[in-house]
């Protein structure tokens, strides 16, 4: 992205003279102390403001107008800048950093193409409520709106996909805007906030001070997240729980964001309710807990969807009843009263009618609910739990547990996921890509810890795994960070192999290579009558690729080799990759075709078997039906 003018060759006398002159000019710009504030330019104020917010890592890529910031980074050594190979990876890495740590992720790009490359990562964070502060440089004030070199209306572009955005034209605004951006990103329903800063603002002198949290809040009269649920509604919820015979908890990302896992478990234990989870809710409960029932939705466990369809009370907490969760709303949980707890009032009543809506933060609401909850004697729910256990046994019998790691004589993807997770005693952070691999991770990752599962749920962004796992590895150095990607998604962002090698970021990569766009192939098989197109995917020799980039790699094609390869990758100092050659035509089952209901699951195990369909309507869906959504 960088467009540098002609510069004298490094090391020449002319170069050192030019460098001296430049540093002198920078010093001059920073002089003139007033009001006891350290003299500095806008770029300095930006670094201070980020550090004051508790962030110590920036994922970025330099370019012309953002260079004033790179010029002062050396003077803020506490701030680690990690140079990526493409700005999209910077936004995904900041996202992974935020998801794994719960802190705000920070990424950086220059104007024009640097900024537009960040957009996919911004959208990903927006749809999944991930706190990001995205900083871009922009052209000097006088050139704004003139179609200058590398100028684009980036705030116009990010407006509909950020929680808020800013165009900063003066150095004096920087401390307040950055503090406000962090506050908005992390509070309420989190999300990405974009700050576009002109070159003049980065280079201008300022004595502006950094505001306190109270000052930031006072400046935002239109922003008051509602944390506490209405006491009357919470009392009604306690009554509903006491009267329910077949209650099910639907836990979502909001529980993790609110850090309410403990309160959730207390509620489930007190009222003896099984906990199910959405894709982004994975990790709300240790999956080995007796009350952990499983993952719901389009590719969720059949027993979980069955429990939901037969429930008399659904308690949705920090989730949004999206189409991948409910399928056809008309046939969703027909006997259930729906309780919907969410911090965002706009989510209530958007996709389903809530019989009992509660607007509030999951932790606050559960804290208020617990003292009102009538303790339920587990013996009163014996029949219910016995039935749930039977359904679970049936549904798990049709999973990889029966396959012995083989499918059509080759390696089975779900087996690989389970062994990768087992290699770190189910304590690693697993970052999925998008497609079949994402569903296998969700189903077989065996998660035991909050924030150990990272996945692009809302936007479904292929190419997410490697850069986001990079962010998780830096955010939580004490845990192993795996990127589990298909060969499609991996090839979208594999340039970041250079980043993890250069920065010694110990990401372990499980490449699930079926030489296909697997989910596309699955949809073309099931929904489009076997009319395959553009699902065959050639790739490089990944061992040679890794050798070229300089990281160790292993190729595995047999189940008995999996554990040793995982152990070797974990033992490697720094990043490593395992190239798993998995079955080429393995589908993710069960599957609810888009537009169908949770009772219309297609389930099939073994190529010689027939599709098993339950419910009133068949599995075939009309590809022209706009309700059907799409693959990936």
């Amino acid at each position: 992205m960088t467009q540098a003018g002609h510069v004298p060759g490094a090391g020449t006398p002319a170069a050192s003279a030019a460098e001296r002159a430049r540093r002198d000019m920078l010093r001059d710009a920073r002089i003139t102390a007033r009001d006891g504030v350290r003299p500095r330019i806008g770029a300095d104020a930006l670094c201070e403001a980020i550090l004051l917010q508790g962030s110590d890592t920036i994922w970025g890529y330099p370019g012309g107008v953002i260079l004033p910031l790179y010029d002062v980074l050396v003077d803020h050594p506490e701030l680690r800048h990690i140079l990526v190979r493409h700005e999209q990876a910077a936004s995904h890495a900041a996202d992974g950093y935020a998801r794994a740590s719960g802190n705000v992720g920070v990424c950086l790009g220059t104007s024009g193409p640097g900024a537009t490359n960040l957009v996919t990562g911004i959208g990903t964070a927006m749809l999944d409520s991930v706190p990001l502060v995205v900083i871009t440089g922009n052209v000097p004030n006088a050139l704004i709106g003139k179609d200058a070199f590398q100028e684009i209306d980036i705030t116009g572009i990010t407006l509909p996909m950020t929680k808020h955005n800013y165009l900063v034209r003066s150095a004096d605004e920087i401390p307040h805007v950055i503090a406000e951006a962090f506050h908005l990103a992390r509070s309420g329903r989190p999300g990405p906030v974009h700050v576009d800063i002109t070159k003049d603002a980065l280079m201008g002198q300022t004595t502006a001070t950094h505001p306190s949290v109270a000052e930031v809040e006072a400046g935002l009269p239109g922003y008051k997240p509602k944390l506490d649920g209405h006491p009357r509604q919470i009392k009604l919820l306690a009554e509903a729980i006491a009267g329910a015979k077949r209650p099910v908890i639907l836990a979502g990302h909001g529980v993790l964001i609110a850090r309410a896992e403990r309160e959730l478990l207390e509620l489930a234990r007190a009222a003896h309710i099984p906990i199910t989870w959405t894709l982004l809710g994975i990790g709300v409960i240790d999956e080995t807990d007796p009350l952990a029932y499983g993952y719901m939705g389009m590719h969720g466990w059949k027993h979980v969807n069955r429990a939901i369809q037969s429930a008399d009370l659904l308690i949705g907490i920090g989730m949004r009843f999206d189409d991948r969760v409910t399928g056809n709303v008309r046939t969703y949980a027909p006997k259930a009263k729906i309780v919907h707890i969410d911090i965002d009032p706009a989510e209530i009543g958007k996709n389903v009618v809530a019989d009992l809506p509660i607007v509030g933060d999951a932790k606050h609401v559960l804290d208020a609910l617990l003292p009102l909850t009538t303790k339920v004697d587990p013996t009163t729910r014996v029949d219910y739990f016995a039935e749930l256990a039977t359904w679970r046994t049936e549904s798990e019998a049709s999973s990889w547990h029966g396959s012995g790691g083989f499918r059509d004589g080759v390696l089975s993807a779900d087996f690989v996921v389970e062994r990768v997770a087992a290699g770190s005693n189910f304590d690693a952070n697993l970052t999925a890509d998008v497609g079949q691999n994402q569903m296998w991770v969700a189903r077989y990752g065996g998660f035991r810890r909050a924030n150990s599962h990272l996945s692009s749920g809302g936007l479904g962004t292929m190419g997410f795994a490697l850069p986001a796992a990079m962010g998780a590895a830096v955010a939580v150095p004490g845990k192993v960070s795996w990127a589990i990607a298909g060969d499609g998604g991996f090839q979208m962002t594999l340039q970041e192999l250079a980043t993890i090698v250069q920065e010694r970021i110990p990401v372990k990569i499980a490449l699930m290579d079926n030489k296909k766009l697997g989910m596309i192939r699955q949809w073309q098989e099931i929904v489009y009558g076997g009319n395959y197109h553009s699902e065959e995917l050639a790739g490089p020799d990944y061992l040679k690729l890794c050798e070229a980039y300089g990281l160790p790699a292993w190729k595995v094609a047999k189940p008995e080799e999996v554990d040793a390869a995982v152990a070797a990758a974990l033992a490697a100092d720094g990043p490593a990759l395992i190239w798993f050659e998995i079955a080429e035509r393995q589908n993710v089952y069960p599957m609810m075709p888009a537009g169908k209901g949770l009772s219309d699951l297609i389930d099939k195990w073994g190529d010689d078997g027939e599709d098993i369909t339950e419910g009133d309507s068949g599995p075939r869906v009309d590809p022209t039906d706009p309700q059907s959504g799409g693959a990936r």
Partner: protein
Amino acid sequence: MSTGSTARSLPGSGEERRHLIVAIVNNKPGVLNRVASLMRARNFNIESLAVSVTERSDTSRMTLTIVGDEVHVEQAAKQLYKLIDVLKVQDVTDESIVEHEFALIKVRATKRTRPEIVSVAEMHRSKVVDLGDEAVIVEAVGEPTEIDTLVELLREFGIKELVRTGSVVMSRGSGSIEEQVKR
């Protein structure tokens, strides 16, 4: 397991009607764009929009009319309220309000028809603000339906140009939406 016989109803009654939404927003560049962009992205069609500064120079007032069922419109109001620069949103459709619109109507006129046009205007509490050789401009203030009627009556003379501001509303009595904005 079979699909239950009772189908779950989708949000909203499906009964569409016109709603009046008042939003108090920060008076800053780009806020109108944020509101318009949100309405576009979420598939709400703005029938009319009137914007002006309020009694306080740092806030503006927007009056939007949108057509939809109650859940659709409530969703629009909730999404609007999520914008950081939006301080207050209220659906005032069913409240006791004064709703007025302003219109300028340029009507084709001859020596013969001019007195008729003037009398039509006067009957409708409107006034003629410009008299030309071949046209007159009628200025009308009132409820949108009153203006609709006037426009229909003037149409027989030939309307050369018509501009309407869209509705602005204010609640009757002493209540003030602006005073409800917490600062």
